[in-house]
Each structure stands twice: as C-alpha cells, then as structure tokens.
C-alpha cells in the first residue's frame, strides 16, 4: 500500500464519504477543477461531478449560511474555508445557527455539516494565511472541533466528522500536510470524536499538544529521552469535547505537564487544559503547568514567523523549568 500524506488522507476521507452517502457534497472556493489551493479536493470533481463537488462564488458568509440551510434540509455539506484567516466572516452562521439548530427546534432540524480549513503557520504564506484560532470554535456551544495530526488520524477523524449528525469544525494543520506519510487503508473506519491519542508513553512529564506542533513536541520528547527524561506525548485531536480524562490520568503518573500550542496564549485551548489541571488534576501536580504558546501578537509576516512559533527549544526550556522543581 502506498503511503499517503495528511492532505491526501483528507481527500480520501471526502471521496469515501461522497461515495457512501449521496447527501454529502463538498463546497468551497476553488474546490472543483482546481482541486483546492492545497489539492485537498484534487480529483473529487472529476470523480463525482460538479453537482457533488461545487465551486462557489467568493463569499464566505454565503458558503456558511447556505451550508446551514442545506444541512437543515437533509444534506451533509462539507464546506471549506480556503484559509482559517478567512473563516471569520463565517462565524456568525456557525455560532448563531449551526451550533443551535438542533437545540432551538428541540431536535426537529439539525445541522450535520463539516467546516474544514487549513490552519496554522510556518509555511511562509502571506498575511492572514497562518491563523490558529481553534479556541474561538471550542468556546462555541454545539460545535465539535477536531484537529488531526497524522494521515491516519486525518482519515478516520474526517470520516467521523462527516458522518456525525452535528456540526464539526475540522482544522487541518497545513504545515504538516505533506509530512509523516503513512499507509492509510481506505477502509471506512472512523475514529472516535472524543478521545485523545497518546503518541508516546512516558513517566516524567506529560506534553500535551495538537495539530502541527505535534512535530516539535515529538522532537522535544526525543531530545528529552536522549537526556534520560521520559516524556509522555498526547495529541488532543478532539479539542471539543476535550478528553481531560486521558490527560489527567497521564499527569497522575508524571506529575508535570507542558501544553504546547501555536495559537495566541490568552484564552486559548491550552488555558482550558491547564484550568482543568488546576481543578481536577491539582493534587497530582508536582510543578506548575507550563504553556508554550504563540504570543498574543499578530502572527508576523514570514521573515519572522518561526520566531513566533513555539520551538523545540522553548518546549525544552519549559520542561527543564518544571523538572528543576521537585
């Protein structure tokens, strides 16, 4: 079996869903013949036709609002925001309608849609092409937020997201779109939308992360291992609902936790995790919970973007700081 990259696994999952359920349609700017600006929808219009894989006018409010309407009428739209920087115009329909349709109507109508988009920095892209504002969606009731960090997780989680009867925001870490290829059987097996993945067992410190920062975090864990420090690495994957049980269980063992996220720090998902540790996890903590995050600044243009992104060095710095504490 050929190995595929994360972006190809995304494609595979959409193709699988389009094949198995005729209610599924893929919509967005340039998703058709162009196959998406990252090729995530490459070949789909050719295979499924332009009534299933639909180019839209350049209008994000329209894409989101129509998806809500379609979903309420029994379709399963999988819409794309071309970059996360352009999703903000969609937020109104997502928060005011997608997340409320079922609740508002006591289940009479629902909103089974997926809003997928590439997110995160580090690819030398122009302004507004490097956003990581997953916390904004995690704060919205009624919306699931999912972030894969490997090809197989991308496939299984996206399939689950599309099949899910409620709205899911699916964030694709574009910096690792083509990193860490894996064999991914197109077997239609989905992954659960509410559990973390423990990527590496360890006993001295728990490193919690998601998306593209999994790469630096695993590198940091390797580095620590070479120094005799055993780090457990957890890929949160489902940002909302958040599987705190797995994280707290790990911290029970290690007593220490560093959360790594490229998003701005203030009110990010890392804060939610740390807040839970300060409550249910408090008695297991041997040292302060550290967050290694992006700064509360605009992501700089690309000459400086790697200075913004959490580095292996910064992760190691945080780990060392709390290891010194006994």
């Amino acid at each position, binding site marked *: 079996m050929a190995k595929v990259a994360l972006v190809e696994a995304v494609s595979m999952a959409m193709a699988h869903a389009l094949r198995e359920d005729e209610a599924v*349609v893929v919509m967005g700017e340039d998703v058709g013949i162009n196959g998406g600006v990252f090729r995530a929808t490459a070949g789909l219009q050719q295979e499924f036709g332009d*009534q299933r894989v639909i180019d*839209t*006018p350049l*209008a994000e*409010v*329209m894409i*989101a*609002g*129509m*998806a*809500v*309407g*379609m*979903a*309420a*009428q*029994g*379709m399963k*739209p999988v819409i794309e925001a071309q970059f996360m920087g352009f999703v903000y115009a969609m937020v*109104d*329909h997502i928060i*005011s*309608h997608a997340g409320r*349709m*079922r*609740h*508002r*109507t*006591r*289940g*009479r*109508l*629902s909103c089974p849609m997926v809003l997928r988009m590439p997110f995160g920095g580090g690819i030398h892209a122009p302004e507004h092409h490097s956003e990581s504002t997953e916390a904004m969606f995690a704060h919205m*009731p*009624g919306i*699931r937020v999912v972030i894969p960090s490997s090809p197989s997780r991308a496939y299984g989680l996206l399939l689950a997201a599309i099949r*899910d*009867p*409620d709205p899911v925001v699916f964030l694709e870490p574009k910096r690792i779109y083509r990193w860490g290829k894996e064999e991914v059987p197109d077997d239609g097996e989905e992954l659960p939308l*509410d559990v973390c993945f423990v990527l590496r067992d360890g006993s001295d410190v728990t490193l919690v992360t998601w998306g593209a920062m999994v790469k630096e975090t695993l590198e940091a864990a390797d580095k620590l291992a070479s120094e005799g420090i055993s780090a457990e690495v957890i890929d949160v994957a489902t940002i*909302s*609902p*958040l*599987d*705190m*049980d797995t994280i707290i269980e790990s911290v029970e063992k290690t007593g220490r936790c560093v959360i790594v996220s490229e998003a701005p720090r203030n009110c990010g998902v890392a804060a939610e995790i740390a807040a839970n540790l300060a409550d249910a996890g408090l008695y297991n903590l041997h040292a302060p919970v550290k967050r290694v995050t992006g700064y509360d600044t605009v992501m700089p243009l690309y000459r400086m973007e790697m200075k913004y992104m959490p580095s292996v060095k910064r992760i190691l710095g945080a780990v060392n700081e709390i290891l010194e504490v006994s």
Partner: protein
Amino acid sequence: MSATVASYSVSYHQFLDREGRLIGDQAPALAKDYQQLISLYELMVETRTFDRKAVALQRTGQLGTYASCLGHEAAHIGIGSAMRAEDCFAPMYREYGAQFYRGVKMSEVLLYWGGDERGNNFSGPTHDFAWCVPIATQYLHAAGAALAFKLRGEKRVAVTVVGDGGSSKGDVMEAMNAASAYDLPLVMVIVNNQWAISVPRSKQNKAKTLAQKGIAAGLPSIQVDGNDIIATRWAMEKAIENARKGEGATVIEMITYRLSDHTTADDASRYRDPADVEEAWKSEPISRLRAYLEAEGVWNESEQARLDKQAAEKVEAAVKEYLGTPTPTIESMFDYMYAQIPHDLQAQKEAALKDAE
C-alpha cells in the same frame, strides 16, 4: 465609444386600492374567487386578533418581548398562502400569518415568545425553518434549502422574508448572488414596512426601491402593494411557479407599514410622528379587503360578527394551551445540543441536576 450594455426596470403592482376598489382590468382570477378571498380574509382577521392578544399578554406580564405583525397581514398571508406544504419557509420573526396558513399553531408562537424552545418545534411543515432573530441570516438558509432541492431534483421552492432594514445586510446580497449563480428555486421577499426599529426606510439607502437589489444579480425584481392581498398573493404565485419550473429566483418588495411599535420593548412615539401612523392606517390591509368583499356582496356585518367570535375563541384556546404548558426540564437545556451528548456536557448536566435539587 459608449454603448448601453444592460437595462433594467422595476415595476409596481397593485390591484385593490385603499378604499377596496379594483384598479385597472388586469386583476388576477383571485379577485373574483370569493371563497378563497374570504378564507384569506378570515385568516387575516384571526391573525390580527391573535396579535392584539399577544401584545396584551406581554403588557400583563404573561409573555416576553413580542414582535407584532399589525398591518402586515396581507403581505404575510399572501406569502404563506401561495406556498405548498413541501415548499420551505425561512421567516424572520413576525410572519405569523404566513405560518398559521402553513399549520403553525397560535400557542406555538406564544410559547416561543414566552421563552420556550418548544414553540420552534411547531406543527407547521417539519422542514420549515425556525424564527430567525439574527437579521437576514435566514436568506442564506433559504438559499441553501433551495440548492438542496435543486441538487436532489425535487420540485420544491424555498421562500424567505427580510425587512427593509435587514435588506441592507450583506447576507441578503450574497443570497441573491447565489440565487443567480446557481439558478435557485427561491423567492426572496423584502417586507418594507418603512421602519427598522427607529430607522426609517430612507436611511437604509437612497435607491428608489429596495426591489432593485435583485438587479445586482440580474434577477427579476418587482414591487407590490404589500397591503393588497390580491397583489401579494399574485406576485408570490408567479414567482413560486417560475422557481418550481426551474426558471430561477425572484425578488419581491412588498410595501407596507408597521402600525405597531417595533416590539413590545419599543416605544415608537419616541421617533415617529403619530400623524404618519394615522395616515398609514388608511392603507391597512384588512379594512380594504373587507370593503371590497362587502361591495362585491359576499361579506356582511353578521359574517363579520361570526368571524370575530370565532377568532376570539381560537385565540383564547391558544392562550389557554400556552399558559398551561409546564416549565421545561433542566435536562432539556442539555439534551438537544447534540444527537449524542458528549461526556463533558453529560458531566455538566449531572451537576446542573444536582444543583437544582
């Protein structure tokens, strides 16, 4: 070199003048279909009876903020009555007349404004959208519904309504644009009642009509007297038929007047001249239709008395049903968020139940 490359116009349609006389000789068959006209008239009167009662309920602390439909009866019932059950309605928040025609119960309207989500799980067509408070967003939901119908090859039409104020929102223009791009089976109504809370129509923009927004997307765009049910119904029928035949979307501006305060939370005397409102009463839709029916000899005082009584009874029954509806449960705050409640929310639900003990 200069050449004209595109030309458009907006036409205005009215059949019944404000005294209830037929104008011109182009009136549609409905003008002589007395049975149907009377049934529309009855619903208009019932709707107004309901509306007055709802306002009274609010004034006496038995209902939350309520958006009155006073004066909009011809517009709303023209819209609702031209639709089939399988068509899909995406209302804003005051089109009760349209919804009653489609089977929504008066008690359900009261439940909604009475602070109970169950009002949205109404007896109208199950595919109809709920009341929509974020202005103009419903236009895109209707466009999405229309695209769904088209993709599935169903001969169904989506109908949506926005106000004069709401027509300034980008959502409206994006929906019209989508209707054009995808040839959607969609009818987009702008109910121009001259006011957006305190902001008069003239402050939304200086264009001669709101209908001409449709021209931006190359859609047929017309204006009708929104207080003339023969006109509103005729325009809707034509537009819905076109849409059903696959001939695309229409924009219809219905000119009416908000005779009430914006909602019961509003006090219109702060910002508008009572003389204007008095003047507007002269064009209101119910008395003109009654005058016409009476002149045609198909309606009279005693019919009216029967109808008034019937309407009052219907409304009373609805109020009773509303007031008798038990409080929602704590569980209901959590159980409709997702098809399957996630573990974190389940924990919150359990805590809430414990707190409520």
